């Protein structure tokens, strides 16, 4: 009886030990992934180069870019600019595998990259100039 019981407990013990191991490894995996994610997060930023004085956007102010950063007039965007020339959801910037992309969200007045109007996703890098409405951003990375 006792021997049989010990036989069963043996498997339960090993199973629980592996469950614990799995959970610890999962947390450490998330930890390692988190380190990489943070590096990507701090990698890029937008600097305001030029903006009308009425908009309370001072020249030189910097917006750090997250994995996804939305720009627009509505309150649910990450960068909210209350300017009539900007659409409710104007454009989005996203980071994928360490590279930064810019996408126009079918805005009324369009998004300009280095002076050219974009119609789909474009990869951007350090030094590029983005024009949204009356505001000019510079990408720093």
């Amino acid at each position: 009886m006792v021997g049989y019981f010990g036989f069963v407990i043996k498997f339960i013990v090993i199973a629980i030990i592996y469950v614990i191991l799995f959970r610890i490894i999962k947390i450490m995996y998330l930890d390692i992934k988190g380190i990489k994610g943070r590096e990507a997060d701090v990698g890029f930023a937008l600097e305001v180069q030029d903006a009308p004085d009425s908009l309370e956007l001072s020249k030189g102010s910097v917006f750090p870019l997250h994995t996804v950063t939305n720009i627009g007039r509505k309150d649910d965007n990450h960068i909210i600019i209350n300017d009539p020339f900007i659409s409710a959801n104007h454009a989005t910037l996203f980071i994928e595998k360490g590279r930064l992309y810019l996408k126009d969200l079918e805005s009324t007045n369009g998004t300009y990259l280095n002076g050219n109007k974009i119609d789909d996703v474009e990869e951007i890098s350090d030094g590029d100039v983005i024009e949204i409405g009356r505001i000019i951003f510079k990408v720093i990375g």
Partner: protein
Amino acid sequence: MKKEEKSILKSIYLVTLLMFFQLSISFGKFDFLPIILGLSSCILIAYSYFIISRFFPAGDKYLLILSSFITQFGLVMIYRLNSQNPVRAIKQITFFTIGIAAYIFLVIFLPEIKKFERLRYVYIIITIVLLSSTLFLGREIKGSKNWIQIGRFNMQPSEIAKLFLILYLSSSIKYIKNFYDALKESIPVFISIGLLVVEKDLGAGLIFFGIYITMLYIGTSNFKYILSAVIIFLLGGLASYFIFPHVKVRIDIWLNPFAYKTGKGYQICQSLFAIAAGGLFGTGLGLGYPQFIPEVHNDFIFSAICEEFGLLGASALILLYILLVYRGLRTAIYAKDDYSRLVAVGISSMLAFQIFVVIGGVTKMIPMTGITLPFVSYGGSSMLLNFICLGVLQKISESGWKENE
């Protein structure tokens, strides 16, 4: 994150109590002592986790969680091996308590590690004095002259010397600019290793060399130094094979243990039989025959774990050790200054080499050398030292960079 940790701790309590419960019924009669041991170690883990997470939430909690879980394997196994006369298990849990107390004490009272940087010659003098003290005051136990008796306690000075060696290396490595400096700073290390070989404490010598070479490489990232250190080590090893008879015996046993199976190779042969008897799932706690291995509670406890927990249990233990070492190295990455970084690297590499030398020894991957498995083997000074090292690591991780800075 905190919720996760607590639920992991709950599973650890569950598995600890389950193992001790199995021990209490597996020897014919119901025994209360294992239940008491299990409950008290669970309370101890819960208490130390509470202190660390309540008052020092910035540090790395997994160092404590992993090491106390590993300690439970040792406690269970030591009780199981001497269930008729459980003095050793009670002593071991006493030293677990003292170790946890030292750990918490260090986390609370240790000043910034950087302040210890100046005393580098003090450390190496302490190391050499500790190591040579056994030559004059030592007692010969089981063929190695590496024990000192103080009152009723036997202790191994080489255990404590390891920590001082790490402190010395961390402060002296930054002075290495060229090959001549490297040689100058290394002479004390080679003297210590030589002393260990003379005292027949080969395992400790191997660990000293491992710590030295890891820290030298991480501190200087110059492959030439490593190469020359390895060459010196190989020459010294070859010379000691011909000069010292005990080195030759160890190597001969390693090459062919079954030729000496009734004499000097008896221990390693029994260890191999025990590991083989365990199979994939093991025989179950209390159902194997690990007591056939001489000195099983000490150096060969890993073979007993292999026999009773099987391949799966033993690999789980190795994985836990790997995670612990990873946590130590992670502490080094996040540390704020080079000195604490090197101390963290040294402590992690000490743990890693110790584990490798013991597990490699009992499975006959490398020649057997008598050292203890960290946190698992029976032994007061080793348990205490490992928790002290962990306390230093915890302190470094607490004052290091935080994740959201």
